[in-house]
């Protein structure tokens, strides 16, 4: 597409009208999620099938196929939405495509079996806003993803994209922009929750030129993927926020730091930057305002600790991405010792909304101390997994049950883990806690970047504590002793407990180590590292005691403390487990009850998975 430079606010408006005029709203459009989640479930094959089928039917010119960003309901991918009807099809397989084309695109009839079915009432949901997963959310940031092909800037401009930037450049001074963000009380979405407006102000007022702005998309928290979905699904919303921030702060160069595990985010963001440049939304004299700003992408190389601001800046300088002591904040001395403002992807994406709708509007959403919405990745042992965007202050129960649809297989909810390795596990007794920065911190956890991992009765909390500790042993940069050594010792103690050789006094030792690490570690990684251990001790001490005193793992997870056996009453002698066992530990004959030799058993659990009669029991 031929893109001419946009030289003013009215130029942008003219372009928008041109884009809209070319669109036939009655034209049939097939929106297919092409986010990493759906692609993992085979979306590419669905897209190819649609293209082939449309060609076969001679419809390739009358039906538009749009490959879109992630709308969030990953559990039910591949997601396909047919417009203008708005039929919302879930779990679409390539084999379903001919039927969709025939019935929906030609005959205008729905394919009912592809609609969401309520597991209790069996009722079908035809449209997005009828699906409980969506209807209980407030999707200000990700709601548009299903309408946007991230590889086409026009899809972002059409519904009003870049108008906030135009407003800022034509009507507002940098100080006014900072004031607006300050009064919106926008807090950093990356985990710290620091007021973004204040940070912008500090960077603007800090001595030294040039100043830099950075998008932190080094989303390392395991179990969190909202930044990926935003960056790959709607990159222009982040870029627009970044340009506005750069103008307010007085920066002319920016970086988008994307972790290398997100190749699609890198690809879509690169395309977005090119297209924004073509329109003169990046580069020299943006929209004829005299303001110059450009941005580069940097691929991380796989280090969790490099998501910390000073570490990320070292990494950008081509060095080892280890944190530095922050006697002076990076907003004063950051990248190449110049004032640098770093914010997380989601924080930047909120900026255009605040500018367009105003600080008062933003303040009307959320709680006293936390305004706006927050995207969470709702995953683990929950029925509807995916990305959910909710107003701050919604309770954990509403998220897990009303949106998430509760726990699968009628299992019992045990805990929800928030805040990644810096956060903690929140038990059922606090499930009615409103979710915001301050409330979760009070419980010993934190909101973090937005991972929300649901755990059921089959999750061992000591194993979870060990998991996070081992994760951090691996990821600690090793620069300061309390973090490096403290984590190693914690891991040893937790491993002992999980292997049945824990002893009295171990819990107290873990607590003592935690205090030292919290008080003396150099960066937030070490200071928050004990949280998973401390919260599991606080809320699930009985599980620790069972491991240490009774040498039992109540959730049947810790291998050293469990044993597999075959229940003679249930075993039908079908030979399935016997054939599947890689150790040859199961013996028996057809239609004769099998037996399991525990000495040979490696506890891999394959027999348990294979048995169709629930005859393999763990004790």
């Amino acid at each position, binding site marked *: 597409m031929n893109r001419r430079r946009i030289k003013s606010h009215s130029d942008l408006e003219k372009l928008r009208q041109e884009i809209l005029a070319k669109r036939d709203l009655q034209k049939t459009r097939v929106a297919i999620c092409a986010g990493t*989640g759906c692609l993992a479930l085979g979306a590419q094959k669905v897209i190819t099938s649609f293209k082939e089928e449309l060609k076969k039917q001679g419809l390739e010119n009358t039906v538009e196929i749009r490959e879109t960003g992630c709308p969030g309901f990953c559990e039910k991918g591949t997601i396909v939405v047919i417009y203008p009807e708005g039929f919302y099809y879930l779990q679409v397989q390539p084999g379903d495509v001919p039927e969709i084309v025939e019935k929906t695109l030609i005959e205008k009839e729905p394919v009912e079996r592809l609609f969401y079915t309520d597991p209790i009432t069996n009722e079908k949901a035809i449209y997005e806003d009828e699906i409980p997963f969506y209807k209980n959310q407030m999707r200000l940031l990700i709601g548009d993803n299903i309408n946007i092909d991230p590889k086409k800037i026009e899809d972002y401009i059409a519904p009003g994209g870049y108008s906030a930037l135009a407003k800022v450049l034509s009507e507002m001074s940098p100080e006014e922009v900072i004031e607006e963000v300050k009064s919106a009380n926008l807090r950093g979405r990356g985990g710290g929750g620091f007021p973004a407006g204040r940070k912008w102000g500090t960077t603007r007022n800090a001595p030294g030129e040039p100043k830099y702005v950075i998008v932190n998309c080094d989303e390392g928290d395991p179990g969190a993927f909202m930044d990926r979905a935003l960056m790959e699904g709607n990159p222009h919303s982040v870029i627009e926020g970044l340009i506005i921030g750069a103008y307010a702060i007085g920066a002319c160069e920016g970086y988008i730091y994307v972790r290398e595990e997100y190749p699609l985010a890198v690809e879509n963001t690169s395309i977005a930057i090119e297209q924004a440049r073509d329109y003169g939304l990046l580069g020299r004299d943006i929209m004829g305002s005299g303001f110059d700003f450009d941005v580069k992408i940097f691929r991380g190389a796989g280090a969790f600790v490099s998501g910390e601001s000073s570490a990320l800046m070292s990494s950008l300088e081509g060095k080892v991405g280890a944190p530095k002591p922050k006697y002076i904040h990076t907003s004063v001395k950051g990248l190449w010792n110049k004032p640098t403002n770093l914010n997380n992807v989601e924080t930047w994406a909120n900026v255009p909304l605040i500018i367009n709708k105003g600080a008062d509007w933003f303040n009307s959403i959320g709680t006293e101390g936390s305004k706006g919405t927050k995207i969470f990745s709702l995953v*683990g042992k929950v029925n509807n997994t995916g990305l959910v965007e909710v107003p701050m202050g919604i309770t954990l129960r509403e998220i897990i049950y009303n949106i998430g649809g509760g726990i699968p297989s009628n299992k019992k909810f045990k805990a929800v883990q928030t805040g990644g390795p810096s956060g903690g596990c929140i038990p059922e007794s606090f499930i009615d806690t409103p979710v915001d920065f301050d409330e979760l911190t009070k419980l010993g956890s934190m909101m973090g970047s937005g991972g929300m991992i649901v755990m059921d009765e089959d999750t061992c909390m000591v194993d979870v504590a060990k998991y996070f500790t081992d994760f951090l042993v691996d990821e600690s940069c090793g620069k300061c002793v309390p973090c490096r050594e403290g984590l190693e010792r914690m891991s040893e103690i937790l491993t002992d407990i999980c292997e049945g050789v824990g002893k009295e006094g171990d819990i107290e030792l873990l607590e003592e180590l935690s205090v030292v690490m919290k008080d003396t570690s150099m960066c937030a990684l070490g200071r928050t590292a004990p949280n998973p251990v401390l919260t599991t001790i606080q809320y699930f001490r009985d599980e620790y005691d069972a491991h240490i005193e009774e040498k039992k793992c109540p959730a049947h997870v810790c291998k050293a403390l469990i044993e597999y056996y075959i229940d003679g009453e249930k075993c039908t002698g079908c030979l399935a487990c016997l054939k599947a066992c890689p150790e040859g530990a199961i013996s028996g004959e057809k239609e004769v009850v099998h037996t399991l030799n525990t000495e040979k058993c490696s506890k*891999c659990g394959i027999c348990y998975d294979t048995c169709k009669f629930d005859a393999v029991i763990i004790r």
Partner: protein
Amino acid sequence: MDEDKIDEIIGCHGTDKSELITILQDVQAEYNWLPPDALRHIAKRLHVPLIEVFGIATFYKSFSLKPRGKHLVRVCLGTACHVRGGPRILETAERILDIKADETTADYEFTVESVNCLGCCALGPVMVVDNEYYGNLPPVKVERILRKYGHTSSSSSTSIKEEKS
């Protein structure tokens, strides 16, 4: 190692020290690992001490200082995958290929790695072979997937340890 190829990669990015990580990424994309001669050459061209190049190459997880197999099997051990059985997927892959994580089969066909989170958390447990994602994966399906990439049960049983941990 082809010095011209490395020079071509450096040519795309320039010799500023801040390009070091990007250059190493591109070199690894070319060779699938970082050959020692390439590190020496890059150090020379960028006027950076070799120890610093080596420091970067060992600090960041995505770099490998040992040749890797033709097929890279990555098992996600992020939290969501962990609670849904990710470790059992890794154990199964290790058992089938008879190597441990971060090791390569003797015939250089497969390397197994664990990764901390691939951002496909809603589909856990997830395994990625080359760039193909397999989500909601039960351990019993691992073998069938590996066969697709040419694994046979008689494939080499000895392994080569990766020094980098």
